[in-house]
């Protein structure tokens, strides 16, 4: 049994979800409508269904200071109706078309999607195009939905000490950059968001030139182009998107620690996050080298941390490392472990520090790198079995500024990573001053 549970819902400070896709033999088409809306088509003819997604290049990191949670709150409000489709109609129309729909918000993007029979794509585009520009919000709707979002925060974060710790670690890791605030927002700020905040946000970020349409499934590029021009092509831009300038993160100078003690925690755990480059922020191969480093150091049962801490020393029940590289401005490299056989968190930390020092000093072996690269590339083949996952990866990649070619070429770059690259990436990234260490301990009964 290995890696069955990721200790802290993936990495403690994972801010966005995506591993950059690599497209293998997928024939991806992309083009732009006259109004600047980007369109990506990923054919998959195995079943007569499509995944229709509209991504906006705006996320929690684009909020104004003091308005944390606004991007996510606004995502909820996008379901609240237009003059043409009043509240409840959007959902009703999707359902009578036999579709499922939902939406999600990250630090760098907001995305809306429907999964539906391929011959209903036109109707989904009509709905999505309508709410891109014609949303109408009453105070009553805004006030009720704010309560829903507050319940969401209570349910997903306040009820769960490990999630609370993850939030605190992010806040500690970023001194100035907005990645330090939670996507769902701080309770104190979300509870004060207003309808006017939502309308201002809508007007500042939702326009065709700031959107990406991704359609995956049983469609042809020509058909998607025809339907996209019909539904989205005549939307006029209400503003011209400008560069997404976030407050830069200053060069880190001091290691930070966050220690949480909570009566609701049953078992102790250790985690650490290092500020790292991302695919978008790194012009070279350092991001890919960090992906290989995560695999060598902490990938499943073959990672050094698992072999050393769990199998050999028997001080941990689980131990691993994670890196996604999907942030727009930066990302995090995370390690985590849970103790076994009554080992202390201090024992775990010492053992992890020893492994980190070893790989930073000596680098991985050529054999380790070769096997890790192969595992990463092979695992990515499974993406081909999910049209939703393919659509998500291209949408997320484009939303953080990667090109289609960069997304498709990811595994070729992984294949070029050498042991020296990994060593250099480890030395550049795994420094104490770039890190925050988090510990979660149960509050003892006595």
């Amino acid at each position, binding site marked *: *049994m*290995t890696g069955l*549970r990721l200790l802290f819902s993936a990495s403690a400070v994972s801010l966005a979800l995506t591993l950059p896709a690599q497209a293998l033999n997928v024939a991806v088409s992309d083009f732009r409508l006259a109004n600047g809306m980007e369109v990506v088509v990923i054919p998959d003819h195995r079943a*007569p269904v499509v995944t229709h997604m509209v991504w906006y290049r705006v996320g929690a990191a684009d909020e104004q200071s003091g308005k944390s949670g606004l991007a996510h709150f606004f995502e909820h409000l996008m379901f609240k109706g237009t003059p043409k489709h009043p509240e409840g109609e959007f959902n009703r129309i999707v359902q009578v078309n036999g579709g499922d729909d939902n939406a999600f918000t990250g630090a760098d993007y907001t995305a809306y999607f429907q999964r539906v029979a391929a011959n209903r794509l036109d109707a989904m585009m009509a709905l999505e195009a309508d709410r891109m520009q014609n949303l109408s919000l009453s105070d009553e709707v805004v006030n009720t939905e704010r309560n829903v979002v507050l319940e969401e925060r209570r349910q997903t974060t306040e009820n769960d000490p490990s999630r609370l710790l993850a939030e605190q670690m992010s806040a500690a890791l970023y001194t100035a950059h907005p990645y330090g605030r939670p996507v769902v927002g701080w309770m104190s700020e979300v509870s004060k968001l207003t309808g006017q905040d939502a309308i201002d946000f809508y007007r500042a970020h939702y326009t065709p030139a700031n959107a990406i349409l991704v359609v995956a*499934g049983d469609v042809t590029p020509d058909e998607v182009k025809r339907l996209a021009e019909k539904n989205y092509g005549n939307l006029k831009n209400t503003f011209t998107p400008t560069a997404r300038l976030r407050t830069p993160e200053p060069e880190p100078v001091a290691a930070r620690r966050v220690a949480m003690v909570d009566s609701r925690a*049953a078992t102790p755990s250790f985690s650490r996050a290092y500020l790292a480059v991302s695919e978008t922020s790194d012009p070279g191969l350092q991001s890919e080298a960090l992906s290989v480093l995560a695999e060598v150091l902490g990938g499943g049962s073959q990672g050094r941390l698992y072999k050393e801490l769990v199998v050999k020393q028997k001080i941990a029940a689980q131990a691993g490392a994670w890196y996604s590289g999907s942030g727009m401005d930066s990302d995090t490299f995370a390690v985590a472990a849970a103790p076994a056989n009554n080992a202390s968190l201090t024992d775990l930390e010492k053992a992890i520090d020893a492994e980190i020092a070893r790989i930073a000093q000596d680098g991985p072996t050529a054999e380790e790198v070769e096997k890790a690269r192969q595992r990463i590339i*092979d695992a990515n083949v499974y993406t081909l*079995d999910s049209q939703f996952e393919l659509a998500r990866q291209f949408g997320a990649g484009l939303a953080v500024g990667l090109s289609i070619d960069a997304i498709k070429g990811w595994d070729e770059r992984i294949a070029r990573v050498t042991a020296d690259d990994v060593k250099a990436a480890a030395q550049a990234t795994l420094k104490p001053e770039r890190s925050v260490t988090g510990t979660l301990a149960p509050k003892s009964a006595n």
Partner: protein
Amino acid sequence: MLKLALRGLFALVLLPLLVLPAAAVTIQEVKSPGGITAWLVEDHTIPLIAMQFAFAGGSTSDPEGKEGAAHFLTGMLDEGAADMDSPTFQARREELAMRLSFDDDQDRFTGNFQTLSRNRDAAFALLKAALTAPHFDAEPMERVRQQFLVSVRDEAKDPGTMASRQWLAMAAPGHAYGRNPHGTEATIQAMTTDDLRATHQRLFTRKGLLISVVGDMDAATLARTLDDVFGALPDTDPPAPPALLTVPEGPMLKVTDMDMPQSIILFGGAGLLRSDKDFIPAYVMNQILGGGGLGSRLSSVVREKKGLTYGIDTGLLPLRRGGLFFGSFSTRNDKAGEAMALVKQELQRMAKDGPTAEELEQARTYLTGSYALRFDSNAKIAGQLLAIQQDNLGIDYINRRNALVEAVTIAQVKEQAQRLLHADKLLVSVVGKPQGL
């Protein structure tokens, strides 16, 4: 907007009722020379193969005092088998990029296997070793024990798990369905190699085995593979299923006090078996009441109109020997009473008046139209084929299912609401500091 995940806690999914345009999936029944049967959907579009299989008998067949044995076994099959010790097996598995995981629920022990086509034969050989010749060596067993101890301790303090276990214990008192399927610290501590061997022998029989395969593989190759992988298993009878469950009548309320901002609330009572002739009308009723997230009656009232929760869902849980109906949501502690009153009001209204013609039509259109969405990947199709076999619905079920949904009437939905929804007799399980209940 992603929705409430509490239903997942039951580790059991009612068979999603799906359909697809009939031509989209062609199921072959493949019988091996050795007499092992599997359902196959052949599709060579992508270089992947997915296989799912299930052995009859899950956590409910754990002997008294050995609770968690089947669950422990899920973690031990890939820790050394045939001529490989644990590190050798793990290294081989990773090198082949194969995906292999095991799971148990109340009624069965399941395996989920996927491989790249190019590694097909080597991956199946590894699967065979795991299924037929696991070692249960002492070193990996102690390591895995530590892992289960951590998860058992975490589950024992996880409010969502606590609420659902407390509810199941109310719905199935003294019955194997009411036990903790993962065992306790004490049973995990006491588990021995012999216990795992006995569990393996008890569960892994060809008589209790169901298999589905989807992807880049033809029938002749599969027939050979079936004998190779599963042929060495004994042809003994699977464990006897538990006694038929009788769910006690409420009202009953159990609250576990926990210091947190929200209360997690589960409510429900008796449901029905999948073989019940009225299962489909009941399923449609549930869809209108609280199935499928936004737009259901409960979601409209409790979430969209009142803003009292992030999500509320209800579901039918047709276990092999007992049916359950339940719903779940989380809400601020001081709103627990108000939210629960709204829930009861909606249950009563559905039982009294049934659905409107419009609601029924919308549910039917949704259920029949969304059918194809469950069949758009190899892994999903494999899961569907296995579920249809488990529920004994027949190899033609996919082609019949939409007509069954289309035929449901207002009177049938109302009849099922009256049968299943008893607002004044609910079993209610709460974790938190609820007010007003």
